[in-house]
């Protein structure tokens, strides 16, 4: 792998716990890998599999979904719904040949800036080792024409 390669991670952070954890990490000046680009959602349950696939297809090397700890969801059990969806999505990603480390789900409470920062650091390190995703080669097998539509269809069906 090329030394200058830096993975890009799209992070979906829930408004109540993990986004605040990220805020706290910043406020506490916890320095962590700048590779995660945050998108705020109200709840991890709002994260559609399409969002994840969209990010990967648009060039992200990984996607981090972060929610409240089970039992502490602001919306009762949205994080559990996210977890269920995540397990299904993982199965599909495996079929597409996308490594498990590229899409991760973590729990971080509003007081756990360090947990979120550690998750980003850990994931960045894992992705550095994995290298770029190369959607075209990995998922479409180089021949973009017929499978492009297949990928698109699968994205739709999730």
């Amino acid at each position, binding site marked *: 792998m090329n030394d200058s390669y830096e993975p890009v991670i799209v992070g979906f952070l829930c408004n109540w716990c993990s986004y605040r954890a990220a*805020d706290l990490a910043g406020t506490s000046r916890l320095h962590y890998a700048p590779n995660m680009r945050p998108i705020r959602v109200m709840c991890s349950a709002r994260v559609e599999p399409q969002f994840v696939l969209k990010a990967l297809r648009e*060039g992200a090397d990984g996607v981090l979904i972060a929610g409240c700890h089970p039992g502490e969801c602001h*919306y*009762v059990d949205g994080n559990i*719904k996210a977890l269920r969806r995540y397990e299904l999505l993982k199965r599909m990603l495996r079929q597409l040949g996308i490594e498990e480390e590229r899409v991760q789900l973590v729990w971080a409470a509003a*007081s756990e800036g360090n947990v979120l920062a550690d998750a980003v650091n850990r994931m960045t390190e894992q992705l550095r080792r994995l290298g770029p995703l190369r959607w075209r080669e990995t998922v479409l097998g180089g021949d973009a024409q017929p499978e492009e539509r297949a990928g698109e269809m699968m994205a739709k069906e999730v």
Partner: protein
Amino acid sequence: MNEERIGVYVCHCGSNIAGTVAVEEVAQWAAKLPNVVVSRDYKFMCSSLGQELVEKDIKELGLTRVVVAACSPHMHERTFRATCERAGLNPFLFEMANIRELDSWATDDRAAATQKAKAMVSAAVRRVVYHQPLQLLPVKINPNTLIVGGGVAGITAALEIANAGYHVYLVEREPSIGGHMAQLDKTFPTLDCSACILTPKMVDVAQNKNITLLSWSQVEAVEGYVGNFTVTVRKKARYVNEEKCTGCGICIEKCPKKVIDEVFEAGLGYRKAIYRPFPQAVPKYPVIDTSNCIFFQRGKCKACQMFCPTDAIDFEQQDQILKLEVGNIILAIGYDTFDPRRIPQYGYGRLANVFTSLEFERMVNAAGPTGGRIVLRDGVTTPKSVAIIHCVGSRDKNYNEHCSRICCMYSLKFSHLLHERLPDAQVYEFYIDIRATAKRYEEFYHRVLEEGTRFIRGRVAEVTDAARMPGEEGKLIVQYEDTLIGKQRRLPVDMVILSLGMEARRDSREVAQIFGLGCEYNGFFIERHPKLDPVNTMTEGIQIAGACQGPMAIPEAVAQGAAAAARVLSLISQGTVMMEPVRAHIDADKCSGCRICNNLCPYNAIVFHEDRKVSEVITALCQGCGACVAACPSAAITGAHFTDEQVMAQIEGMLWDVQPQFAMTSMETR
């Protein structure tokens, strides 16, 4: 869509952002993004001058969308929404990029931070194009309030709200309100008698017509949202009819069954099977403890019923389930003390004369089990030497990392009380640091120093009864390192007191689940902001007060109780609150009637119309989580302010600098 006119404003925040992010470069770069008509950087965007800049541009350049790249939306989103509104732009046509907390403060790599800031600005610019004008939703506030926990914080909050003329339901799980404060003898540093200052307040609660006191009760479920909560409370059977009982106490006197009082007397004294925790209990009605009552266990006795002059004993009483409608909730469930059995080398439970701080509080209390005499476990011998060990379970990576804040001061108070009651006794305090930080605390420390307490700096390794040297026989030996002289020492004493730290209630996580709150790693509830919003939680309409938020002494708990009450009163007096319009909406034309969303909604906010075979979101019940939006297979549900278009555009913007794999726009893929 392409005619939007966007203004981008990049904040320096002094050097907070500009120190790490090349803000001028970001602003100049953003000027070239699609639809951007003006892009500026400014020292402090949140200042009135910064805001005026935005207002002026909206008016003069006809901006239809605004992006501010500055701090967290949790800091200043409201500020800039109001700015837009003042200039005549719908406040929801604004988007914030958090390039401070999530960027400049989280790294010192200037190039990477600048790149990330560009990504976040580009995401905001692309997202804001799809924003729609929205209106805040007014929600009526039910003026009743639920307070959970009748310790000093809960009592204070209840009285504040009740005295303002609004109704309070005060739920307490023990038979009496009072909490830990009712157990204490004196309070530091003023040496006020704890009960003497608390009981008048407890009586006020009992007599206040605006307070419904539900003791021996627990909250089982909470539904609803700010202004309109429905709370299910289980009022446990007391087996005493509250209408008939006069609180005379004859039943308690006549009850033949004595049991150890593990709660109020901290295991040091006894109570009856029918009991009031303490004479000044509020309410005055006793409770039958069915697991110890002879009648409930063996079917015979009924002594209490026989002697009750008003026929108030009712063995048939059942638990009652109450449904309360309230607009606001204050949680003041307090703390538990650390369980010293977790540190076996201190010998609690094994060595008779090792006491906990709570046991000592009860012992020195004139109304306590020993009538205020300080004696060893045998009940007669007066100790000639006492060691007080600080930080038991606190400031220790093996147990709790936090400082419990009150233990230094109550340990000093113990020293003072020991000198007062046993002038000949030698008192030793084993401390790590003396933390006497509030008003008159340091003065109290000096007073105790002058009274002759020996202060030894060092953590105690072990308390043992294994004598090794002459003079140690029959004593407790404290093995410690005196860190000021750097030597291992042994000290034989008659009595050891463990100054227990404060922990979150053992069931705090279960309580948090009922109310939908977050907990810290150690179980204390998380406040909305540690500095600026210490009594609010992330859930609108739910406040926290007292030691359930973190270790604190009585004055802070009282202040928090009053602060939470002020928050509640301000909502009640407004009558309505304006809620974020982040709500789901179902397009009836697209809905296939599959009903997948129906069961996903945690608030039962989605109804299914059998006649038309479509689902509909009841806006007033929807809280905007978006679980249904993500799940709808027909994409018939839109989550306002978090629509698919908005998030997809944001994803594209975030990844502006990485090679797109397809030459497709987001619209084509959908």
